[in-house]
């Protein structure tokens, strides 16, 4: 079994091509690990064992035939259950899609399949990605592998926990307000929220279309980068997708200017979390980086702005779940009664709350005061970043004001739950890329560092992340 310890994408490739193990053995090892560990962790909603072993067979045959295999061949991964994998259930963590099976592959899944990566299953999430702890899933509670009494973060909590528990090599999540970065921080893994449009959203069940972005989780920055490069790119099925320019500039920490937004270290942050992140900044400075305090003066508006924009878009996106063409369908006395009954039974409390808030913000008489105003405030938030990125290369910030909290701790108070995303939300509003990576621990709980870059500078951010790994 030792050959499967501390695997990376590179090591798997070497192991397969060097015939140290077969794709079947590797896949079986991960399926066994899930079998053994997931009783406690609860990261997975569906396990695609048959499909995984069939794909492994294809890779083994290719190797036996001396065909060249891609770097990602047989690399086992997990997928947030809001992303479509053909012929596999896709529930978005909601009862309204309990009986739904995807009829096509999301573009990112299609790309991974082409490269031979092996999907092990679908992971738990807050219903329709609405939440910060994965506790709003209609199916199960996922636990933090570092402390089973605590949440894994959310909404991509299952994807983060599956990587942290070594149940897969990487996973995919989606990030609308922090749903990749915050669980990555809570679970002590690396998570990348790419620039808006860098990865096609085709096949992702929409929450808030102007904010949603698919991205990878991995246990190290290099794997995260390999996966990002595999799934990125323009796609005719997503008109908001864009092609990233390949940047090959050399990374030199001594030429790097790091901005520290003072608003992210003010009131509300746990003292220990602040110390971990500041410690990391000091280390970067000792290694030659230039550190400069900067200001993002409209930060205080980010969370309220987000909750108007995101819920407004969600209320429109979720209108499609009406029980007519697929999913839960509850009989009623007439058509409109069926809509009412299906939605009322199918959606959970948090989703209903957000649909209500969004419907309110878009409703006649309130549109200007809420949605229209929020979209203008959003422009102010983006301008803050535009100004700052004229002066510095990156921003270093905490990911969340606190480490993983106790299961149930924030379930009764939506506003307290929303605060878990206070440092990640601006990035979505401005469409920026950001990396969340382990920076240290408070007790046994991981604490993440967030590296924010300007639009389309993923490769620079990832290089910075790789450097930070060397000085941890």
């Amino acid at each position, binding site marked *: 079994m030792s050959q499967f310890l501390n695997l990376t994408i590179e090591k798997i490739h070497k192991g397969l091509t060097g015939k140290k193990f077969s794709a079947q053995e590797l896949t079986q090892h991960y399926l066994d690990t899930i079998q053994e560990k997931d009783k406690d962790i609860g990261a997975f909603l569906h396990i695609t064992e048959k499909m995984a072993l069939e794909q492994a067979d294809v890779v083994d045959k290719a190797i036996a035939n001396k065909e060249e295999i891609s770097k990602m061949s047989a690399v086992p991964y997990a997928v947030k259950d809001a992303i479509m994998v053909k012929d596999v259930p896709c529930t978005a963590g909601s009862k309204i899609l309990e009986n739904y099976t995807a009829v096509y592959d999301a573009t990112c899944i299609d790309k991974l399949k082409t490269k031979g990566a092996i999907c092990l299953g679908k992971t738990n999430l807050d219903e329709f990605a609405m939440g910060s702890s994965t506790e709003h899933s209609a199916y199960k509670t996922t636990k933090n592998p570092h402390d089973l009494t605590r949440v894994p973060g959310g909404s991509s909590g299952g994807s983060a926990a599956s990587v942290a528990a070594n149940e897969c090599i990487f996973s995919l999540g989606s990030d609308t307000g922090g749903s990749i970065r915050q669980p990555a921080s809570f679970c002590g893994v690396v998570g990348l929220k790419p620039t808006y449009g860098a990865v096609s959203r085709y096949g992702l069940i929409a929450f808030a279309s102007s*904010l949603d972005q698919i991205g990878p989780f991995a246990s190290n920055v290099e794997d995260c980068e390999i996966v990002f490069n595999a799934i990125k790119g323009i796609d005719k099925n997503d008109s908001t997708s864009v092609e990233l320019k390949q940047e090959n500039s050399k990374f030199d920490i001594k030429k790097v200017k790091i901005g520290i937004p003072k608003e992210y270290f003010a009131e509300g942050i746990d003292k220990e979390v602040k110390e971990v992140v500041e410690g990391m900044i000091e280390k970067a400075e000792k290694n030659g980086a230039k550190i400069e305090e900067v200001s993002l003066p409209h930060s205080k508006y980010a969370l309220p702005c987000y909750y108007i924009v995101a819920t407004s878009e969600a209320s429109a996106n979720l209108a499609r779940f009406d029980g*007519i063409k697929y999913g839960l369908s509850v009989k009623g006395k007439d058509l409109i009664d069926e809509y009412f009954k299906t939605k009322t039974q199918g959606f959970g409390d948090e989703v209903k709350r957000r649909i209500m808030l969004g419907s*309110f913000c878009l409703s006649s008489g309130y549109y200007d005061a809420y949605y229209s105003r*929020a979209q203008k405030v959003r422009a102010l938030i983006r301008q803050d970043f535009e100004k700052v990125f004229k002066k510095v290369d990156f921003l270093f910030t905490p990911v969340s004001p606190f480490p993983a909290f106790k299961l149930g701790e924030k379930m009764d108070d939506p506003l307290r739950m929303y605060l878990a995303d206070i440092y990640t939300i601006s990035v979505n509003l401005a469409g920026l890329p950001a990396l969340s990576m382990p920076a240290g621990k408070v007790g046994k709980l991981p604490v993440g560092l967030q590296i924010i870059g300007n639009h389309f500078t993923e490769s620079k951010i990832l290089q910075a992340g790789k450097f930070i790994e060397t000085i941890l």
Partner: protein
Amino acid sequence: MISKEEVEHIAKLARLELTESELKKMQNDLAGILDYVDVLQKADISKVKTTEHSVGLNMENVTREDEPKPATAETIKKIKEQFPDKQDGHLKVKGILN
């Protein structure tokens, strides 16, 4: 504070049925959140244009011809399998005009 009647109206727009106690809790939750987002009223938006694109850098509209693309028989079959109600291979819905 958002009134009970307003919450009922919004629930109707959103096609959600709320029991009396759910209505009360929803009113409370929404009031709390609306109170919290009220800070946006203080932002000076007089000199700013609205957000039209999430990234906003010289983005162009993306268009294509509106041409139907044939789906495979397999896809059609799989989509039809998920119909909650059907008749003679067609999706069946309740009448809109009765």
